[in-house]
């Protein structure tokens, strides 16, 4: 993704993130995700339907990169099966870790393709993914 476009995607998703609201209800699973070295603090609310991710919302205080990354992740994961979701997540991590990845899967996630160059911001981009992986594990172990 072009650098300018990447900036715009991040800024747009930071200023107008999707699904930024708390959801109550027993059909939503809540996980908290944060990093030890910064103050980002995000709650994810995930609704599974059998093997599908039906809905995700989030709430919290976090930096531009974390917030934008959460918004993008939510757009990309809603409607995916757990298997597809994991494939997407693995590719996102691979991109952040400078490994080989399938760029056709990531859509707006590609806005974070240069994040590996700022090693101190990588954990911001991956923060929501840490949370969703925790939620998936909890769901599958239920």
């Amino acid at each position: 993704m072009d650098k300018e476009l990447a900036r715009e995607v991040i800024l747009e998703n930071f200023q107008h993130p999707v699904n930024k609201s708390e959801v109550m209800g027993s059909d939503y699973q809540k996980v908290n995700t944060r990093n030890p070295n910064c103050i980002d603090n995000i709650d994810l609310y995930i609704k599974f339907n059998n093997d599908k991710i039906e809905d995700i919302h989030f709430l919290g205080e976090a930096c531009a990169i974390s917030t934008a990354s959460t918004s993008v992740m939510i757009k990309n994961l809603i409607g995916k099966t757990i298997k597809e979701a994991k494939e997407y997540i693995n590719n996102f991590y691979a991109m952040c870790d400078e490994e080989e990845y399938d760029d056709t899967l990531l859509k707006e996630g590609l806005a974070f393709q240069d994040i590996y160059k700022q090693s101190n911001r990588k954990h911001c981009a991956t923060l929501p993914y840490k949370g969703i992986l925790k939620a998936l594990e909890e769901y599958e172990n239920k």
Partner: protein
Amino acid sequence: MHRDDFPMLRQDIIYLDNGATSLKPQCVIDKMTDYYENYSANAHRGDYDISYKVDLEYENTRDLVKDFIGAKRKEEIVFTSGTTDSLNLIVNGFFSGLLEAGDEIILTKTEHASNVMPWFRVAGETGAIIKYIPLDDNNFVTLDNLKKVVTPKTKVISLAEITNVVGDIRPIKEITKFAHERDIFVVVDGAQSVPHIKTNVSDTDVDFLAFSAHKMCGPTGVGVLYAKYELMQNIEPMNLGGGMNESFDAPDKMVLKEVPTRFEAGTPNISGVIGLGEAIKYLNKVGMDKISAYEKNLRSYLIEKLVSIPHIDILNIEADSGIVAFNVDGLFSEDVAYYLNKYGICVRAGSHCAKLTKDVLGVANSIRVSLYFYNTESEIDSLVELLKDKDKIMKEMF
């Protein structure tokens, strides 16, 4: 003032995080190096010249601290590892044995974690109750508001003389007078006040005072607990071991040394204590009154400039200390700090270890500028210039 004394200031940075820790002047660094290079023996042990010199220097710091805070005797000064350590010692070594179920501990919601969490635990263990002084419109503590929460059950009031986010200077002397008329103990967290304003415990009459060397031009890993001499006998040492005992023959036959030595078990932070002594000499030379007057002016200068920027929301306009907390409209504090860092400006973002403060400020996180006497108006100009342009911040914050 005195910028040439600080080796760190030769770097191209603007250091505005003095609330977290201060920079160290060359004389303090040299004094500690001198110990390691020329007389690095243990304290209170050896019968040879260089060890004797260690004792002299170590105890000399105790005298310097005593005079610096206006204590009556040097025995009232205990060396700890920092404010946190001092507060934990006083809560666990003194108040845990004294508090009973239903007794009240009074704090404020703007205290640092180190002056909250030890009290939370002791409350849990003893059944004592935590109460908070309601804060006024500026989030300051007033004597009138303290009166609203004190009851016959109140045993202790523990508060910072200057808090690390709101930065208000509390009326400690009035509070202590009111408290003592009711046999209530007063514990003061001096981490942000002792480095910046003149402290006199004989004048304020507080019972306990905790502070850290590293925020006052001294080294990390050293702090002080001041306790009134007559209360010291009742503090239970938390650490037992070498250096603090007279003899030990059986579990029921342990004889401890006199205060304050009995609170300093094990080999202490000798170079740190000696460094603290030098830091105090240095601050005395600069002059504590000069330091606070200078910081007050510098703060006004900063506030005046910040209020004229429409997208800046200052959280503590009225406070008197060198602490200014603010947010940039719609932006996350850490992003702004990250942006400023690109220009070599060091500020802190976050909750500043005062997580109850969000209840009173309405925001959990902020950017904090904390000044010291070596900061300048021109540094503030650079900061303000960078904050003026919100588009630039948005463009460069990630």
